[in-house]
């Protein structure tokens, strides 16, 4: 007999789910597991909308398991902790990002790189240890192993904290790992959306000079006046791109649509690094001569481990690095998704779960 989401686990829960590749979300009753000895249960107050949610809902990667309750930028308040939980207590402000489990024993896990564990479990749409499918943060509550729970520092509002849990760590981690976090470096950011605007803010906090590379000229004023970017390049403007050749120490490329790499490689100085955090689903052409002639690299990076996610959110609180968000009620979510397809948001939707998600 197929398990019913409502009966799988002992604790009632409700949220919004998509039931098919139309991706349309609607109310959904399900259940959360009992709080185990290492688990933390929390009431969800806010959840960011990540573009990955949209890809998943519409089965664009071909591996979606319906019904899907998306959401991996989840922030809330602890309601219960297991008997062996050491890091959290009831009332703490916490968050959960893209992962809720990993094997805990491989080299990656031992190196605090759970995000590279070959057996990680995603926060939604993935098979958990008990063979149930995980449900994400577009819901009223979550239960997660304390290892995968992030403390949200005082002074960081929960709605602003939520997008840091995916967008924030996704750009923070490669800025650190590829050493683009040194003062005075010149960092480029390709794409000005949820990830891109966070990359600008973190890079500025690292005291880099930041250039945004975008196809949309209408974003320029906002980028410079409001986000604090130092300059703005329109990627289709051949003259601008030519003039900027060899000027960047590194580039964080947030664009997941297919796009040419050569103009970006040319923007790099010698020894420069192009780091991809968006993942086009088809291979891209990589011209080899410019890579060799400048000893440049093209690399990838995928979110971050839990230790680094905590470090990132503490840094964000300390340096006032917060996403620009549009807070929406739960029942606006389908409209928000339509707008997200057109990148019509500055720069992250955050669902006000606490005030607007009601049981049906």
């Amino acid at each position, binding site marked *: 007999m197929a398990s019913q989401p409502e009966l799988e686990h002992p604790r009632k829960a409700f949220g919004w789910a998509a039931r098919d590749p139309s991706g349309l979300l609607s109310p959904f009753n399900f259940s959360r597991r009992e709080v185990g000895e290492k688990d933390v249960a929390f009431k969800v107050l806010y959840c960011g909308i990540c573009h990955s949610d949209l890809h998943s809902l519409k089965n664009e990667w071909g591996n979606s398991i319906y019904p899907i309750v998306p959401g991996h930028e989840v922030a809330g308040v602890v309601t219960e902790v297991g008997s062996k939980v050491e890091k959290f207590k009831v009332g703490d402000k916490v968050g959960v990002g893209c992962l809720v489990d990993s094997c805990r024993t491989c080299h990656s896990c031992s190196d605090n790189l759970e995000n590279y564990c070959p057996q990680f479990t995603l926060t939604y749409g993935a098979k958990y240890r008990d063979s149930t499918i995980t449900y994400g943060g577009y819901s009223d509550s979550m239960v997660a192993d304390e290892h995968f729970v992030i403390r949200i520092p005082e002074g960081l509002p929960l709605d602003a904290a939520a997008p840091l849990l995916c967008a924030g760590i996704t750009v923070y981690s490669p800025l650190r790992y590829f050493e683009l976090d040194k003062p005075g470096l010149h960092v480029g950011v390709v794409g000005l959306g949820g990830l891109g605007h966070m990359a600008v803010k973190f890079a500025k906090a690292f005291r880099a000079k930041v250039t945004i590379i975008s196809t949309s000229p209408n974003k320029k004023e906002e980028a410079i006046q409001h986000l604090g970017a130092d300059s703005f390049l329109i990627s289709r403007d051949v003259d601008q791109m030519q003039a900027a050749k060899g000027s960047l120490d590194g580039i964080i490329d947030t664009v997941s649509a297919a796009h040419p790499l050569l103009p970006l490689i040319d923007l790099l100085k010698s020894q420069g690094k192009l780091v991809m955090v968006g993942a086009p689903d088809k*291979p*891209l052409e990589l011209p080899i001569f410019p890579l060799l*002639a400048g000893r*440049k690299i093209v*690399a*990838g990076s995928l979110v971050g481990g839990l230790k680094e996610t905590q470090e990132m959110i503490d840094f964000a609180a300390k340096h006032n690095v917060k996403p620009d968000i549009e807070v929406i009620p739960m029942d606006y979510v389908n409209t928000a998704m339509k707008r997200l397809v057109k990148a019509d948001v500055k720069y992250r939707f955050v669902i006000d779960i606490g005030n607007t998600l009601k049981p049906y």
Partner: protein
Amino acid sequence: MSKSPETQYPHKALGWAATDTSGILSPFHFSRRENGDDDVTVQILFCGVCHSDLHTVKNDWGFTTYPVVPGHEIVGVVTKVGNNVKNFKEGDKVGVGVIVESCKECECCQQDLENYCPRPVFTYNSPYYDGTRTQGGYSNSVVVHQRYVLRFPDNLPLDAGAPLLCAGITVYSPMKYYGMTEPGKHLGVAGLGGLGHVAIKIGKAFGLKVTVISGSPYKEAEAIDRLGADSFLVSSDPAKMKAAMGTMDYIIDTISAVHSLTSLLSLLKLNGKLITVGLPNKPLEVPIFTLVAGRKLVGGSNFGGIKETQEMLDFCGKHNITADIELIKIDQINTAMERLSKGDVKYRFVIDVANSISSL
């Protein structure tokens, strides 16, 4: 009135040059400049045949100016030094590699990275600062600024050591720069030709485990028994490639034909690095998702600076590393080029210049 190659300069020289895109080489009378205060005149004894020579004589890369005398793996003896030359004297055994001049003022030159200078002068087929074009080592002499002349280790045979001047530094430099020198780590060498076979030897000298990745199964016994590789992976065997997934810390990719990076990248562990040193004439396809999911990188590297080339030669002297060569007379060069285009050489042709390009 422009001067002929023979009268451009005061000192007559004899070499073999290609005169059109057939790439066929034939005797060519030209001249070498007066030995200036900073110059060293070298009587050439041996010159290695690099695949770049073949690409150049056939104008594969589209920037050859004929007539061209190739050759940038030069070993010879000093016959004259300028007044400012302190480090070399007549009779010294020296080498000349890929580059004979650079601007000396840019950041790269100041960091001993003349190979990344934006205004390099290559040993052949390059515009020199006086408006002439450089001619390479398939000739009986060359005059080079002292900064670009290398001391040749006393204990290494001159003929078998010649290929180190390009093949040697081309694999040594990325191994150092990208940190591929930790004993016990696992290096993959893709392609078993001039570059590949030297990479095995240098890799073993660094204490690495070395696996050759090749499309030619018949090369296996030789790779292991004679060259010292630890294992051999046939790239066209899907089962073997699958079994080797995620086992290598780094890969040096020496393949100059267009090839897919997807299967090579899958062999890398987390944070693995694939460094390409071959020069395919078209872009390669790179699967971005594979880079992102494993924080992997693809980088390029272009021979090496002079200081590092000297370091490499001294390292090879210490570890007794030379190339496996087939010594030929200059008259055999066209046959050798044809065999090289089919990969039919173990593993580098070296021209016995002294005994076949008669002096004037």
